[in-house]
């Protein structure tokens, strides 16, 4: 969570707010199955960049807000986002040295796992999706990762967030 001595921490929260907006913004019907996991992408980046500030507790709190927005059981998305952050943080040392395409691949695997966990959780609550199309958002997110990553890195340099 944000420490008092940190600089420009509010920008991180601003990106999360924008991520929340993006995750509920209306999309054309055919694109809804492709909606990227915006919050997970942002969390992955900030957890890699500022591990002392953005961690699993942040992810969990954001997940709770997402639960309220989506009307799912409180704790469902919180668990998923905490899982994603945990995996990213545990691979952090390696991920930092990887080239971008390799990072994308790791992101694909992590998000795919998270989406499968999501499927399992929603099956428990009786809303089982009929197809495996829910892995598509992981794919789209992995493709978006380089752009998100470069964009946020630029933002971070510019505002000297640390």
């Amino acid at each position: 969570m944000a420490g008092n001595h940190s600089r420009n921490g509010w920008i991180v929260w601003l990106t999360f707010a924008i991520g929340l907006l993006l995750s509920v913004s209306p999309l054309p019907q055919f694109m809804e199955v492709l909606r990227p996991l915006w919050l997970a992408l942002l969390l992955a980046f900030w957890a890699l960049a500022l591990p002392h500030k953005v961690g699993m507790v942040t992810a969990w709190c954001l997940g709770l807000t997402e639960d309220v927005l989506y009307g799912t059981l409180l704790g469902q998305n919180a668990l998923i986002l905490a899982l994603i952050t945990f995996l990213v943080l545990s691979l952090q040392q390696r991920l930092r040295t990887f080239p971008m395409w390799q990072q994308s691949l790791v992101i694909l695997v992590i998000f795919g796992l998270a989406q499968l966990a999501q499927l399992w959780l929603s099956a428990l609550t009786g809303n089982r999706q009929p197809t495996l199309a829910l892995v598509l958002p992981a794919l789209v997110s992995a493709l978006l990762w380089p752009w998100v990553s470069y964009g946020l890195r630029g933002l971070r340099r510019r505002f000297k967030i640390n």
Partner: protein
Amino acid sequence: MGVRFLVLVVLSVALMVVDARFTLLKPVRSQMSLVLMQTYWITDLPQRLFQGVASQFGSRTELAAENEKLKTENLLLQGRMQKLAALTEQNVRLRELLNSSALVNEKVEVAELIGMDPNPFTHRIIINKGERDGVVLGQPVLDARGLMGQVVELMPYTSRVLLLTDTTHSIPVQVNRNGLRAIASGTGNPERLELRHVADTADIKEGDLLVSSGLGQRFPAGYPVATVKEVIHDSGQPFAIVRAVPTAALNRSRYLLLVFSDSRTPEERANDAAQAQEAEQKGEAPPIVPATVPKPVTSVPATAAPAAATAVAPAPAAAEHKVVKKPAPAAAKPPAAAPATTRERQ
């Protein structure tokens, strides 16, 4: 780090179980939604702005044309309404003859759609009326053409509506033509409902209108739900496959109607109706004992002798029924009867 993750996992699972089983977390959720639901409002803002701008810059000819169209439509609808008034009156009279419970007029209120559920596998929408506006859980939602769904989650100023076509939703319906009952289930396709367990020999065919039957005690009876699109008789299947298209524009309507039907039980409703009627009759002819002059008989045309004869038979029963149902409170608390009257005769 692993320990922290484990703690969070346990916490999440505990939260999920508590949220699924108990109502303990409902206040927390509604407080959080108070702030968070603004995001739907914000994401809806561009469209709202666009509409505002479009209405600002609409040309005069366009507006005149629209006005013309609306006037024509209004005329047509009012013409239909005239007939409806007569039919309603007739229906009430016939129901009185049959001594069955009176039809109740439902009150409706307009709500606006502010968001769609981001999950593409569920059909849920978010509307701008919530608990503080008097919306209740399970309340039916209509659009101009038919039933859309029901309220499944209440928040202070917004609520979530489950549409008819969601895979977890089913609604008891009735074929308008012959009263055949069935259950229409959602398929996850916004343009299709399926009727479950319809016998192969059942009298149902393409183009039939399905209306809500009111049997589930959730949806009011008589609202259009869907039209039958195809009936497939497959000899390999135990039941006919019946597919229907919802009459409501589930993925296009922006303005919806919330139906407020009264929560009284049928008995209470009958009681209230009887009291209301008595109060009315008292108002008409105060000195005479009201029960001796059954209203239905007077309204039956005198020329239809056999009809009148048959009508007289049940009428005394109705009258007796009313006498029994006339306790002291009818006179003692007119304020209670008065609102009931307005509700019935709206």
